[in-house]
């Protein structure tokens, strides 16, 4: 059985400087209460892996706004001028990666693979300095696995075993990140009794989840 804790207790588990994989796509499917608690706790120097920089003060943008991020690994920062500013000021390092590559890099870490061989970004400036592996005369760009200390994810339902369901486009990176971190903390919309979620509806098996966040 998984302990249901407060967002504040979750923030206590996460030290400054940790590598965080944070679910969500433009803030949709982001565990906002955990993010808020991290900001309130004044945590610093995170490396954050996510789809995007959110909007200013929304989604991952809320951590950026609080100057809690020293490195951001995302596919997009275009809707968060604050992220652009911190990048230009040298306050935050931004590693841009194609969305599909990011998904596969996280998955590779979670699935015990040595990395990803992709055509995406091959021959572009994004590939500069990166390894190209030739297979049967064809070139592939090698991208390494991407793993986090903590995955901070959102779900729709959870049961006390930790089984999770997701809803619509709030799914996005959440199930992938649940495989790719040492500790997985999930903020479900609702916690239901064990046995209520049918086995075929479970999208993330409970064994992957370490902590659930209590309802507000």
């Amino acid at each position, binding site marked *: 059985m998984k302990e249901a804790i407060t967002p504040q207790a979750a923030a206590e588990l996460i030290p400054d400087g940790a590598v965080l994989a944070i679910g969500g796509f*433009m803030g949709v499917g982001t565990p906002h209460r955990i993010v808020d608690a991290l900001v309130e706790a004044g945590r610093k120097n995170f490396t954050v892996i996510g789809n995007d920089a959110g*909007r200013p003060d929304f989604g991952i943008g809320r951590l950026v706004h609080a100057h809690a991020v020293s490195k951001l690994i995302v596919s997009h*920062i275009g809707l968060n001028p604050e992220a652009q500013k911190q990048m230009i000021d040298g306050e935050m390092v931004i590693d841009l990666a*194609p969305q599909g590559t990011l998904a596969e890099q996280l998955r590779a870490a979670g699935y015990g693979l040595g990395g990803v061989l992709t*055509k*995406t970004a091959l021959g*572009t400036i*994004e590939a500069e300095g990166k390894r190209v592996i030739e297979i049967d005369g064809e070139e592939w760009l090698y991208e390494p696995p991407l793993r986090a200390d903590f995955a901070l994810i959102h779900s729709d339902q959870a049961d006390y075993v930790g089984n999770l369901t997701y809803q*619509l486009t709030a799914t*996005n990176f959440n199930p992938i990140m649940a495989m790719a971190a040492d500790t997985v903390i999930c903020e479900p919309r609702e916690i239901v009794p064990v046995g209520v979620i049918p086995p075929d509806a479970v999208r993330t098996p409970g064994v992957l989840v370490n902590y659930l966040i209590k309802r507000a």
Partner: protein
Amino acid sequence: MDALEIIQRRVARELKPGSLVNLGIGLPTGVSRYVPAELSVFFQSENGIIGMGARPPEGMEDEDLTDAGGGYVSALPGAATIDSAVSFGLIRGGHVEATVLGGLEVDENGQLANWVVPGKMVPGMGGAMDLVTGARRVIVAMQHTARGRPKIVPKCTLPLTSLRRVTLIVTELAVIEPTDDGLVLRERAPGIVVDTIVENTTAKIHVPEYVPEMVLSVRTLEEASAAAA
């Protein structure tokens, strides 16, 4: 009919019945207006849905159902939710029949630059590199020029989005196809003469003897099926 509508209407006619299509944010999004429901084109939003529909009526939006730009959308009958790995697996694995994307530059190799202006605009590539590299057909939908400056150029000066050659370029002036032999002018917009297109293009462009005018009517299922066959 303004420039955007010409482009959107013409691109809409490229989409095949029952196919999976990804429309970029902005101008490309509007293409769906000219694709009748009977064509059963499935629009993918790469943040995680196939079968995306229009923005729902006021008050019926759901915070868990958005497009890649974060705007509210609806789910059509037969829609399916997918996670980001599956979503990009569909894109990278060649399961997306067509993607429609904006462009900053396209060159004589048919290569596209549309994601960064170094030192000026660094929004990140999002899903653009995946889409241009992986979709079965890549349709660039853009205005022919930007503030008078041609966007179809001999060689891209901006960083490429992919080495991959795009399938078709649709502007408010012309339809241009990149081929092994370079860019070929396939169609001209209603009332536009070939010279106007050539004057507004710095890339070398092959002009066949006969260049038909674009058709801009909305395709019925029957027409679209016949064209796809």
